[in-house]
Structure formats: C-alpha cells, structure tokens
C-alpha cells in the first residue's frame, strides 16, 4: 500500500517510490530517478507527476520543476509511441549523424521534439547515447540501432510503424 493516498502511479511504481525515498541519506536525492521512472510510466512528466513527487519527497513543486527543467531527457509534453532519438554528438556527427537526423525529419515530417499527427513517432536530436563505436546511432525508446544508413533507418521506422519493433521500456 502506497504512502500517498490516491497515487497517480501504478501500485508497483508507488511501492518502488516508497522504498526509493528511504535509501538515500537525503530524501531529495531520489528526485531524479523518480522523475525518470514516472516519465517511463506516464509517458511524460505531467503537472500531476510534479505534484505527487513533490509531496512524496517533501519538496516544493518549484524545486521539482527547477530540477526537471535542467535535464533534457525529461519531457513535460507527451512524446510519440516511439520516440526516435538521433545522436549528433562528435562521433556520430563525423559519421553522418546529421544526415540521419535530416532523413528522419523528412521521412516523419516532423522536427526536433515534435510528434507526428497520429502520435506514433516523435523525433529528438540528442547528445551522446554511448554508442560511439557503432556510430552513427539512434535510440527508439530504450532500444538501440547503430551503424545506421538512411536505408537502415527507413527499415527501422517501417518495422515500428507496422508494430513489429522492440518496444523496450
């Protein structure tokens, strides 16, 4: 049973959060992991998430928003069902990261941090995702695709559009 009545999270996540605030020397250290897990479950960090997390840690909502706005991985608006994150940091850039990004933009018809009309795809230009050895790389939700070419990207997007893609959460 969660410590917070009427929690907006699933019972499992609520239980996880109850535990999370107890394992750090300071309660507020749990803030960033909580935001991330909440985003994974809800899809984005909504105002309701901010309110409940502030309540759970004993912070002001303003404090939560200060931290939330610092991290570009944390979203305050819903992303698409499949969030395509193309890396354009140095290694990927040298191996054509920007071409991949432009290709995705043209293919999906959306720009950075935008969502397609049907809500299936969203696109993001991200900093290094740690796949430099296999650059250029991109991440769809939590699934990696590397050594990309534009053709490969088309295939990946089609796979996801057909609902065949791995949707790692």
């Amino acid at each position: 049973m969660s410590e917070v009545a009427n929690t907006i999270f699933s019972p499992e996540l609520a239980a996880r959060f109850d535990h999370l605030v107890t394992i750090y020397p300071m309660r507020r250290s749990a803030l960033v992991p909580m935001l991330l897990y909440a985003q994974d479950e809800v899809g984005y960090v909504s105002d309701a998430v901010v309110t409940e997390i502030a309540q759970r840690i004993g912070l002001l909502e303003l404090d939560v928003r200060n931290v939330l706005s610092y991290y570009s991985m944390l979203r305050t608006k819903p992303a698409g069902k499949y969030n395509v994150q193309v890396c354009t940091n140095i290694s990927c850039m040298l191996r054509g990261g920007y071409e991949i990004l432009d290709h995705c933009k043209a293919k999906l018809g959306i720009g950075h941090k935008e969502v397609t009309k049907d809500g299936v795809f969203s696109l993001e230009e991200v900093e290094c995702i740690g796949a430099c050895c296999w650059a250029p790389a991109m991440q769809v939700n939590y699934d990696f695709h590397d050594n990309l070419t534009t053709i490969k990207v088309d295939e990946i997007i089609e796979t996801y559009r057909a609902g065949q893609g791995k949707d790692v959460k």
Partner: protein
Amino acid sequence: MADVTFTVDGKKLTAPAGTLLIDACKSAGIEIPAFCYYPGLSLQAACRMCVVRLEKVPKLQTACTTPVAEGMVVQTETPEIVQARKATLQLLLGNHPLDCPVCDAGGECELQDMTFKYGAAESFYAEPKNHREEQKWSPVVYFDRPRCILCYRCVRMCGEGMDVFALGIQNRGSSSVIAPNVPADLTPDHLAHVDCEQCGMCIDACPVGALTSGTYRYKTRPWEMNHVATTCTHCGDGCKTTLGVRSTSDGSEIVRGDNRDKSGINGDFLCNKGRYAFDFANNDDRITQPLVRQSNGEFKPVSWEEAFDYVGKRLRELRDTRGGKSIGVIGGNRLTNEEAYLLQKFARTVVGTNNIDHHRTADYVSFAQALAGQTNRTASLRDTLTAPAILLVGGDPTNQAPGTAWNIRTNVRNNRARLYVVNSAEIKLRRQAKAFVRLAPFGYGALAGYLAGDNAAGSSAVTDVNALSTFRDTVKAEENLLILIGSELRGAELKKLIEFGLSIPGAKFALLADYANSRGAADMGLLPDMLPGYTPVSSSNTFAEYNAPAEAGLDMLEIFDAAGRGELSALYVVGSNPVARYSVDPAALKDTFVVVQEMFLTETAALADVILPAANLYEKSGSVTNSYGDLQQVKKAGDRAGVRTDFEMIVRIADKMGADMRKLVPFGKGLRADMGQSRGAQSGEADRHAIWLTANNLEPKLSPFDPYAILDEIQRLVPGYNVLRLQLLSGNDQHLQPAASGLVQIGNRRDLVLPANDTLFTSGTLGRYSAMLNDVQQYQANQPLIQIQAAD
C-alpha cells in the same frame, strides 16, 4: 574566534578567523566587487567578479568564499585580475540589453558601476541578443529576463531570507532563467506568476534591473527624486523606509518607497507595505478642503479660517455650557508622539476633560506596570537580531510585524538562535522554532498561569501537559531570553507572563502592537486614566497648573455609550476611525458635534459636522515610537496642497477656543515671550521649561507649530523619554524604557485591547485607500497561497 593576520595589497590586516576575505577587505576599506555575494545569505560564487590572486594558489580564487587564513597574501587589483573581471563583464554584457536609458535600475545598477570601472563596453560578441518579453509576476514584481545576470541573489533572498522559496532557477546554462513558483501552464492567463508574501526583497537584492517594482516602473529616474528617509507608517516595527519624492503641481508626490541605504533599524529588510503602500498618499479620494455640514445635511467646502473659527467657537460654547466632561477626544495610532502628546494636553488643559482614548492594539499600560521599577528589561527591535534565545508567545510576526519575523529568521539562520513558539495557531515562524507548543484556543491565560507556576492551569492550555512541562523547563534554563508577546495577552495574564519572565536572568520583553505609533499613543497618555509615561491621572500634578481634571475620564466605549445617552456634546477625532473599528451605531452621534481630522471620508468622517483634511505620517515631521519602544524620527517627504498636519490643526483649534498658546506649546523667545517673568521666578511651567532648556543646551522654539517645542516638553515631563537629540536627528533609533513609577497600581481597569488583525496586505484605513494593496489582495485571493498562512 582568534584573530588571524594576512596581507592584502601589501597592507597587513587582521580579522577573526573564519571571516570571508571579501568582508575582511571591506572592513579595511578595500573594495572587492561582487554581484552574487550578499552578506547574511548563503555563498554562491556564481558571478566570478570577486576573483583575487592568492599567493601559492595556481588559479584566481573567489574572495566571497575564501575564509582568511594566517599568513595569507592577497592581491586584489592586478592587471591580471582586472582583465579577468573585464572578461566576466563582457560575457555578462553579451546578452544584457543596453537599455540603461529606460531601465529602472539605471543609476543604481551594480553592473553599470562595474562596467564603468572596468570598461567592458565594447563587445566581441556579434550574435544578436537573445530577447525575451518582460513578465508581470504579480502586481508588484516584474521580471525582465534579458537583464538578468543569474547571480541567484533573489533566489536566496526569497528562500533563506524570507522563508518563502517562491523563486527558483530553471533550465540550464545560458538559457537558465529565474522562475517563479506558479508556472505559466497552471494559470488562467498562461503567464508565470509568483505566489508569495510580495515583499519585494528580490527586487531590492537584484543588482541589475531584472526584477523591478510594479509601482515604480518607468516612472522616473533615481537622480530625479529627492530621497527622504523616514519611518514607515504601517505596522508596529517602525522600519526605515526611504521615499523617493518628486515635485508636482500640487505639492510633492511620493513615487517610490524602498530601503535605499539599509541604514535603519530594519537592516536589509522592508516588507510589501513599507515598500509599496505609500500610494494612499497619492489617492484621488483624499479630502483637500475643510468640509462643514450644512443644515440640509450636505458637506460644503469652506476656507480654513472659517472652519477653525466654527470648530473653536462651537467647542468653546459646548465646554462652557455643558462642561468639559461632556466632550470626548479620540486620537489615532499614526500620529507622531508630539501630536499625541499635544492632543492629550489639549484635551486635559484646554477642553478640561480626561475623556481621551485611542484604538489600543496592545495592553501597554499593564506592560509598563508589570515592569515597574525594572531597568533594562525591555527589548529593542535590534535585540531580535542578536538574542541567543527567543520565546514568542502569541502574535504572528510574519503577517503582522514582518520586520520582527525577518530579524528572528535571520537570527536563527545566522546565529543559531533558539526560537520557542507558543501559539494557538500554526503560525509560519514555527518552521524556524526549536519547539512549538500549540495552545488550545484562548489558552494564553492558562499558559501564563502555568509558566508562572500554577501547574493546575496546564491542562486548559494544552492537551499534552508533559510536553509543556519540558518546554517550561527548557525556557527557564535559557539566559538572556527575549520574550516577545502578542496582543492576545492582556491585563493580569500579561502581568503573570512577565512575572515568569522576570524570574529568568537577563530576560527582556517586548509587546507587539499594530500601527506605526500605537506604542507612542499609549506612552503619550492618549488614555482616560493615564497621563504621559503611564502616570495615573489621580496621582499626578503635571497639569495641575492648568486645572486639568483629576479623575479618570471615559474610555473609548464609554464615550460612545455616553453619546448614545445624549450626554456627549462634542467628539473630536484625530486620525482614527472608531465608528468602523468599534461598530458604533451612527445614530448614537446624531446629537453630538463631531469634528474629524482625516485624510479620507471614512465611516467616522461621514458622520462628522466638520472634516478637516489631514496630512499623513509621510507628510509631517516628528518622532514615532515602535512597539518595542524604539524612538525614531519621521521626516516630511510628500506634500499635498490643501491638507495640514494634525499638530497645526490642534494648535489652531486651541487658539480659536481662546486658549493661551504659550501654555499649550512652550515657544517664543525675547521680549514677547513669557518665560514666567510675569509670575515671578520659579513659579510656573513656562519658567521651569526655560530653565530646563538652558540646562540642556536647547533653544526655545520660535513657532507654536514647531513639533520640537512639544518634544522639549515630552523630554522634560514624560518619564522614560530621555531622548538623545543627536541620535534622533541623525535618523537613528534609540531605545526608550518608559515604565510605570509603581507608586499607584490600578486594579480593575478595562484593557479594551482590540488588535487590528491586519495581514500582510491590509493596513487599516490606509490599506483601503492604497491601490497597490488592493491589487495585491485581489491577486493573492486567486493564488493558492502555497506559502502564506492567512492570519486567523
């Protein structure tokens, strides 16, 4: 702390260990520039302006975070450092709009000063500036994003200083932005807002023009105003507020209030009311002509001469036909001490009545009597900043005396003072308290009894008597305890609490009241049974020479009861609104001749036969005493054609009543002055006054309208008011300790205390006529009030 010796720019300096280098240099007259450093707040080291060269340290260090150490060798102004600071400025100016010609901070801007000093005016930054529209966060706080230099001063000021935490930093790097606590997507108008105490301390702390004040924006420039430091007219703390004044066609208008030089009793602090609520003075509804009610019931504007003639004649008639006892006089809580003293002297000697009272907001008579014969037992407001331990019984300083609350918070934060709070409500200061005792409603009397040793009373004060017993022991063990008492405690209960406190060595007391001069009004004897300095009427011969009545008069309620019975021939009200405050039935005054001196057409003024337009505390000179007993000067700042000070009006009415002016106001000199010669030496007040003046190296004042003539008399006659003139005239505060003589203890007197219950955004009559306060009230009514607990 032991002293350490170190060298700065070749000078040998000493400072206590642990002092920050920037402070140590400042004390030695070496200025190290800084944007983000603010004494008393946490260290940030965000701006990199205060970099200095420490010997044997590879990189430049920030002086604001470096504690001095033995043998440290420091350079503060080498070409290298100048270059570093210049580079910092160039980076800051990369995105800072050069709108100094319209910016409110122009002329008072630290960034301007630094640029002037280090010359970083030419920029290598070719990209277009990143502009953002200014935001209105609240009626009084505006934010200009591009001007912000991200020094975090406002964030710390709001969080640490005010304990409100309404501002934060959002986003990252160069797109960082100061964000208020109500984000845009949660508001109906989709604009970010700030939900806070609206004190404007963030604006004060801002080194540039990023945060600006709603009441002053784009009005004028700092150098186009005269700056008059005076005492705030609102609550009982008596903070110094500096009013920016500009000439207008009908006087001089107050355009800004702030805490410009931070030299007052309030240190860094100024609240919403002191900063913005001067605008009642500029209200269009002010009465600017004497009004006399005609037979058809309408007010007709008349000349001053006619009004004074009429009032003087009528009051004289009524005094002579129905006796002075049929006349009532009510004074205000925002009069100067001189006016209050003059008013009671006028009532007692010219009208011949003791029916004089004011709206009492705390029981100062019992307070003075309980401390009779004690010395150094009353606290100054300054003590709240230094006391090692503070017991706060009742009251809610956060809302009613923000300066006190600021001092307590600062004291707890910076000196680790121990704060103990006892209250029947969960007041905000409990967040700083070491122990908080929640009393049962109306449990203050029982609590005072319990503390004084009556163990049976504990159960009616709190639910958990054991906790209270521990609390009592803890408090008793504190030496040099400062006991702040709210106006909930009165009469016998107050005396009991003070009795308990007197058993603690070094304990000091303060009784918190509302309004700028409630304390002064009580000190000056605006009371039916007390003369100035808490001398009982019956036991004194101060005014014997004038045949003043020797028995106590009617108090506030009895005056209106008498009016209801038709026994009150006249009522003279100076700067007070008793009809609204005490819910008086207007019909009660139908047969009474009512004279009201007031700024606005209040409920009381609406019933008057004569209304005399009065100046407010910002438009007169004199002295006021805050609720701690700190005497401070009031200086004339604003001016309004067609109003007069209450002092002048009282004198003129007395003159028209045929009173001897020289007996009312001791003035005059030379051939035409009667300093007692006509009555033989050593024979009268005038003579005694002249001798006293000579002994004190003071000159006789030349005008009956000079409040200082009355101040002379106050100083001579009122016990405890041994004022140091130089302190007063220098704009400093001085702590006075008037206490009852202790000869005559009055038993069952009614205390009649009616706290004003003003909140952060109300201020009696003035608050109703302050456009800004009304705006803020309306604005805050729509906010969730995350932080502020509304006063019960």
